């Protein structure tokens, strides 16, 4: 039985795609929640520090929208899908309509959700292109109640509005490798400061001298308050969020040309960013870094910290969700209370938002003092695997044999202005490092070549 039926115009498909693409930066799956008046897409990132909610108005956004409901889902219907599979449906059309001058452009897209007792649960998207081809995609989904983040508007007394486009361009000035964004105001100079920094390198004690040079740019951008439409912020209040999240939001926000509205209260409490375009309301709730968190995190292993803190939260939510699914009873609004309603108890103060983990949650950032991705650490694991046959480098040079270099540490006795920085490809993708963890080479390929050809290298006479 068809629960929901809606039609997207060509432009609607593009907007839908962009919304999903934005969500994909936070989460792998999306919850679709349909009501009579709106269709809501929600997602929560794995560390539960960011919540995204896109609401499409049933009358203004869709060319056609019909929420039928059934006995089981009278007021609302919800399901969860992989964002990737949804993206792949819309993505290919988008590309072709730019390249081929509209001949294969999407004319419209009909989406129907089929569910009910004895029926296959399916989301069917039928995409009709201008050239007469109609493609149908059928996706299975999981019935799962969406999780909504709680945000107390009354508490969030600090707020500012600015053109999302302007803010997006300001963000262009931030370099790579930064993690955190500190937003603070200065009433004396009438500016709002956006400061990007990272805690990565200086984690353990005094930084090694070379490590200083590995620190990313520390960037501060002062934007005059006059450029904001409405600034009401406690003077000198520092609020810290993840740069990655903020970038992802702005990337999407700039496409709407709209005003970005930001509301927040204090460090460690959620911050809400929202903007809208025709028939679409985009809301983001981000957990801000508490002052205590920021300090304690500096001294802890970030990975353990993130995992241990995020884990219990994950379990409790999935348990809650699955229990709802298992019950499968008639769900009136009372029977399926929105999770946000449950959490208004004071004991669960900020249940969806644990303290901020690192922007890339699973792998630990490699650039600590202990592990240097350029000079591969001689950890106990690596040692055994890559113990060289001839560990003496001097011999190696004499014989000019192709050997693995044993010296993981650069030779500090010889003065060089050499790079202690890892190659960009290695630093920027800690995931890759981890994937190869068992197979890391003990030196760069170029170094290997160097030892091999060192006999005939013409050295510069000094």
């Amino acid at each position: 039985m068809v629960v929901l039926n809606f039609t997207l115009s060509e432009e609607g498909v593009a907007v839908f795609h962009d919304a999903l693409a934005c969500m994909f930066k936070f989460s792998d799956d999306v919850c679709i929640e349909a009501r009579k008046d709106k269709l809501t897409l929600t997602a929560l990132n794995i560390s539960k520090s960011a919540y995204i909610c896109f609401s499409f108005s049933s009358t203004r956004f869709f060319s056609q929208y019909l929420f039928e409901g059934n006995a089981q889902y009278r007021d609302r219907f919800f399901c969860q899908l992989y964002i990737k599979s949804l993206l792949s449906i819309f993505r290919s059309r988008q590309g072709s309509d730019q390249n081929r001058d509209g001949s294969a452009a999407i004319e419209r897209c009909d989406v129907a959700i089929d569910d009910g007792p004895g029926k296959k649960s399916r989301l069917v998207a039928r995409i009709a292109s201008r050239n007469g081809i109609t493609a149908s995609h059928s996706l299975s989904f999981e019935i799962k109640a969406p999780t909504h983040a709680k945000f107390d508007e009354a508490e969030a007394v600090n707020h500012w509005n600015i053109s999302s486009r302007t803010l997006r361009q300001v963000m262009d000035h931030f370099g790579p490798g930064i993690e955190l964004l500190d937003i603070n105001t200065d009433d004396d100079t009438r500016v709002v400061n956006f400061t990007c920094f990272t805690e990565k390198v200086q984690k353990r004690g005094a930084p090694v001298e070379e490590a200083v040079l590995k620190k990313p740019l520390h960037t501060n951008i002062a934007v005059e308050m006059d450029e904001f439409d409405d600034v009401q912020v406690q003077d000198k209040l520092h609020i810290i969020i993840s740069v990655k999240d903020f970038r992802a939001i702005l990337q999407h926000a700039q496409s709407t040309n709209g005003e970005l509205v930001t509301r927040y209260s204090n460090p460690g409490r959620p911050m809400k960013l929202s903007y809208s375009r025709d028939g679409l309301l985009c809301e983001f709730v981000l957990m801000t870094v508490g002052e205590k968190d920021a300090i304690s995190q500096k001294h802890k292993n970030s990975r353990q910290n993130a995992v241990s803190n995020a884990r219990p939260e994950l379990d409790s939510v999935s348990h809650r969700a699955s229990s709802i699914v298992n019950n499968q009873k008639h769900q009136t609004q009372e029977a399926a209370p929105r999770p946000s309603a449950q959490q208004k108890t004071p004991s669960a103060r900020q249940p969806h938002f644990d303290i901020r983990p690192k922007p890339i949650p699973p792998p630990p950032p490699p650039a600590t003092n202990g592990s240097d991705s350029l000079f591969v650490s001689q950890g106990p694991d690596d040692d055994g695997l890559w113990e060289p046959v001839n560990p003496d480098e001097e011999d190696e040079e004499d014989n000019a044999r192709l050997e693995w270099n044993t010296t993981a540490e650069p030779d500090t006795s010889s003065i060089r202005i050499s790079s202690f920085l890892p190659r960009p490809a290695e630093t920027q993708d800690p995931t890759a490092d981890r994937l190869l963890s068992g197979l890391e080479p003990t030196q760069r390929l170029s170094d290997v070549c160097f030892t091999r050809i060192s006999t005939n290298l013409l050295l510069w006479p000094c």
Partner: protein
Amino acid sequence: MRFKTDLKNIRTLSKLAAALNSLEKIAWVRLDDDSVRFTVIPDTGSQVWATLSVDLIFDGYHIQSAEPNNTINLELPLGPLQRALKSATGSNHANLRLTKRDGVPMLSMTIHTMTKDAQQDARGGGQFGGGGGGAGRSYHHGQDFGNDPDPFGDAGDVFQQESLELSLKREREKVITQDIPVRVLHPDTVETIMQPKVREPDVHIQLPPLLQLKAISDRFTKLALTTATSNRGTGSQNPKLELSANMHGSLRLRLVTETLDITSVWENLDNPLLDQSQLTVPLAEHPSTIFEAAGPNKWATVRVDGKDWSRVLSVGRLDGRVIACFADDHALILYVYVPNFDDISSEDVITYYVSSYSS
């Protein structure tokens, strides 16, 4: 120890940083009363010594230290420098000063700039068909040209299009501070780092446009890599290119592998005349004179690493005249003359000591 200056010719400095960054991530920068020197010495590969006159990139330059000639030696990561300069490109005003934050020395770049909205508007807005068009604000970029006499200045800044739409808010200048981490080096540390000395070259020749040379060199290198992977065994070695020049205006690039032997030759290149006053030997006894007398078949040849050579040639982005000096089977040095439109007579030279290999 003090260092403070306004920046000019930001694009030139930015291109230099990019060219050096392709060889090595960290540079040794030596600042003194008269000049700015960037040096990169990679573990393997070519080293670069770039000496620029202060006037080329700085304005209102103040330097002070306990060392003779007010010398300050810094170790500077090139990636962050490049990123900071990117922010400064097209700005109204930018300055640089040595400072400390949390006890850590920093090169702090302060940039007064506008956001570049108009160009992005055209690209980003069209995506949604409706409504994307010209909602941008109208910005005036041109107010403050006196402060940034960048000869490479983007014409786009001057002829900024103004949107017809009226905006309620005027674009305000933003102040961006980019702090680049640096290490201050003790003079003793750098004392032992010497610029290489090479014997008088056999051949000196002006290179053809580097973009062309790089395209062909890169193609050769790729060819060598593909043939190397097809016959296993040589795969671990980087391909070597053979580079030769004579005193009769020819440059030859050659690749020899087991399966192929390809050569590109440029002719009618310029062999610049030597200035007797700069020479330690009489011109008649100079190796290049001997090579010239030996005729066009007398080549000076070196072998260079294909990948390293490609990184060296990235200096072409500076659009400078490049003189290559060949010491046969021994060394290759490139002198890149940085164009300075403020002062034609100035000699800003980047010297590449290209790592070379015997055959």
